[in-house]
């Protein structure tokens, strides 16, 4: 495994999960793998954090979960984004962009 990959930035895991699920419904491992792949292994998703986050998001009504049989005939809990989850993702995305923009402006100014 790559030495440079790190744990997900504190507080962003929810947003990453929501974003990942906005592409298509997925099971837990699928989400972890997708995040790692898309970020080119910059982020490493801890299974404990992931599964706890999924529970939390489900309870907040942003995800629906359902046990289903996957294409390779294994049972898996498939998560799907709900309309409120979609709205939440939009909110978090704008929020995040505002913050990163601010931070990069700050960093540029320092330089």
């Amino acid at each position, binding site marked *: 495994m790559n030495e440079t990959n790190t744990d997900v930035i504190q507080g962003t895991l929810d947003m990453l999960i929501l974003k990942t699920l906005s592409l298509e419904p997925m099971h837990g491992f699928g989400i972890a793998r997708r995040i790692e792949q898309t970020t080119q292994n910059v982020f490493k998703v801890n*299974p404990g954090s992931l*599964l706890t986050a999924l529970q939390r998001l489900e309870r907040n009504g942003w995800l629906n979960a359902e046990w289903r049989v996957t294409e390779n005939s294994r049972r898996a809990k498939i998560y799907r984004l709900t309309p409120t989850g979609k709205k939440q993702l939009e909110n978090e995305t704008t929020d995040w962009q505002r913050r990163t923009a601010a931070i990069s402006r700050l960093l540029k100014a320092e330089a």
Partner: protein
Amino acid sequence: MAVLQQLLHGFRNLARRQHADKNVADEIDSFFAEAKAELEARGLPPEDAARAARIRLGSATALHEQVRSYGWENIVSGIFQEVRYTLRRLRATPGFTVVSVATLALGLGATSAIFSVINGVLLKPLPYVHPEQLVALWMTAPGVKIPNLNMAPSVYFTMADEKRAFQAVCMWTSGSTSVTGRGQPEQTPAVYATHELLPILGVTPQIGRLFAAADDNPKSERTVMLSDGYWRSHFGGNPSVLGQRILLDGNAHSIVGVLPPSFEFMDRNLDLLIPLRLERAKTYLGRFSYSGVGRLKPGITVKQADADLGRMLPIVMQRFPAPPGFTVKMFESARIAPNLRPLKDDLIGDIGNTLWVLMATVGIVLLIACANVANLLLVRADGRQQELAIRTALGASWTRIARELLLESVTLGVVAGAAGLGLSWGAVKLLSASDLVHLPRAHNIHIDVWVVLFTLVTSVGFSAFFGLIPVLRYARPQIANALHSGGRSMSHSKDRHRVRNLLVVAQVALALILLVTSGLMIRTFRNLRHVDPGFTNPHEIQTVRIGIPDEQVKEPERVMHMEQAMLDKIAAINGVQSVSITTAVPMGGEESNDPIYAEDKTYREGTIPPLRRYKWVAPGYFATMGQRMVAGRNLTRAELFNSSSVALISENTAREMWGSPAAAIGKRIRSSVKDDWRQVIGVVADEHIDGVDKDAPTLVYWPLLQKNFDGDKVTVQRYVSFVIRTPRAGSPSLENEMRNAIWSIDPNLPLARVDTLETLYDRSLARTSFTLILLAIAGGMALLLGIVGIYGVISYSVSQRTREIGIRLALGAPLTNVTRLFVHNGLLLSAIGCACGLAAALVLTRWMRSLLFSVSPADPLTYFAMSAALILAAALASYLPARKATQVDPVQALRAE
């Protein structure tokens, strides 16, 4: 929305714990399977893939724990688990649990019961709108030494005209009226009030109309309002009663309304509400014999209203004339001033002090109970010391152990609180079932939300408090060193016993306070029983009250003859030794005060001589009551029927006016300056007519039939009580024969207040007996708990020092020395406790001064006797376990442990 979902999920998981667990496990399995499948797809052999996937997941158990611990329900179920564990531990030691729960339940139950009384009587607001605006209209007249002066018509009329600080005022009085023309005549309790009463209280009749000003006018038609209970029992709840007429004291009254079922007023037993009809044109100053109630304007304080009434009182003197024989100046010399008080205070009276003393008492019992349980908990924690030390060594945080110990005591407290609530429920039932105590607002005493809340808070509060004692002792961070002190405890250091000793000292001190208070009550009760009330053998005296209203028999002489005829009929009843008549039976509540002028005294112009209690009697009254004749002679029948100008006075009146009973004989007195002079023919022993705990008032006894008295040509007393001395007093058969005797003269007379004098006597002692009983129970409980505490500490110390005793005995110490060692210890503790208790009692008992009767709160005898009793009990409590020490076999003791 989110909160709701959180709750729903949580409950679902709580309800289906296993399902939720399996769900988590399944998901972890599926995660593992997917990870493995992916690695296999990348070309790893299955074993390597499985291992890599497992590494990726980390410890499956830890993962499972992490994921399933999410959610509030897990915190809740964690607490449940701890409580379950605590309960299991308590069940494992049933002896300890039962004793501590029972001890605490007694303390909590007593506290909760007294609180429910305080809550119902003192704390609950009156059941009217804006009850804080309601005031009782009282005045005071320092000029004639009357601290609480009632309302008078002249003051009422002036206040009703002026209003000022008041929205409205009402004058009322309670009494009874005879209802005739509907089957048997009945004496029915009634309140007579001016028309403002119901509007002031904010009450509207359930049917019919309110009284109007016209109803108070003596010239208008007489009207009446029924209580809900009377309406249902006498008219079947029929709404057509409106407009019907009933005969009250022989006069037809038209029914205008029915009061609502919830109506209550000043604890008066009220079946009828009748307008108080006063003729304004004939109103004089004086007749201060009514009660008053007023509603203040919003925002006005009682103090402001007081000042306002103070400005109105001089107007009263200008607007109304003095009655015949008096001058306005005389009234001014009485220096009448306002003395308003909130209506609730007036209703409650002085019971508040008694109740708070009782509350303090049960609070002390509760503290003692807590000390006992704290002691037990200490012993228990002592036994667990090694376990706790090992757990600390294995990494249990001390906060966790502290939580466990606290949870144990709080669980005990809550269980005991529930049991105590049950006890208190029973006690309140018992209290309301017995009419031993005449508490104001007694119908308000229930176990309600506040009582439950109070019990819960006290249970948790007190149990957390005493639970902290072992926590501070054993759950401190430095506990680890207890490990190496090992089991071979040598003689314990003083420090280990200090907390326990302190608890025993506190218990003894608290117990002594309670013993002293109950001792003072016992002395009070004895002193009261020793007061000569002015009668003998009250259980042999039957009383019954009748009234012959004006409307029924007009001529005073005829009334007197009727009363005499009844007297003769009753005297003929089998077993009656003697019978007579009076207007005021001792402790019966009738009261009439007026000034007395003596012929040989001079009175300064415009002043009123001291007021005396008036009472009217028939011949033979004093003999029937067993009231001693001090000087002179009794009234004769001839003097009564000739309306002779004679009177008798009580010994204290004679001493106050002429120095000695003998000197009073032959002196002449009268009630007003227009009356005939009346000769004092006899002086009788003092009579504690208001109750044995009250001073005997200075009394004047007049014959029932009088000429030229108080401005009237001929007067007769129409409302009188028969007093009958007979061994049959109190029996239903006697009551029947009395009724027949009275009805043979007039079948329209209802009989009221059929009682033995003993009932009245006991009732006058009721509050003292009630306080005494409760204090004695509390004192007994305190003594018992205190002794158990000493016994426990000494036996524990004996059991802990077996080894030392063994060594002492082996070295040849005499048995008595060993016994003395422990008894000495117990006595020392109780002596220190006694000293503290005595000091505390000296300070605290000052608050119960008003409950005591001719005994000082610092009564040395009580203090001495109670300390001696306590020390004696303590000596016994330490001797019993100490004797066990002497049965120690030295060889066994040294081998033990």
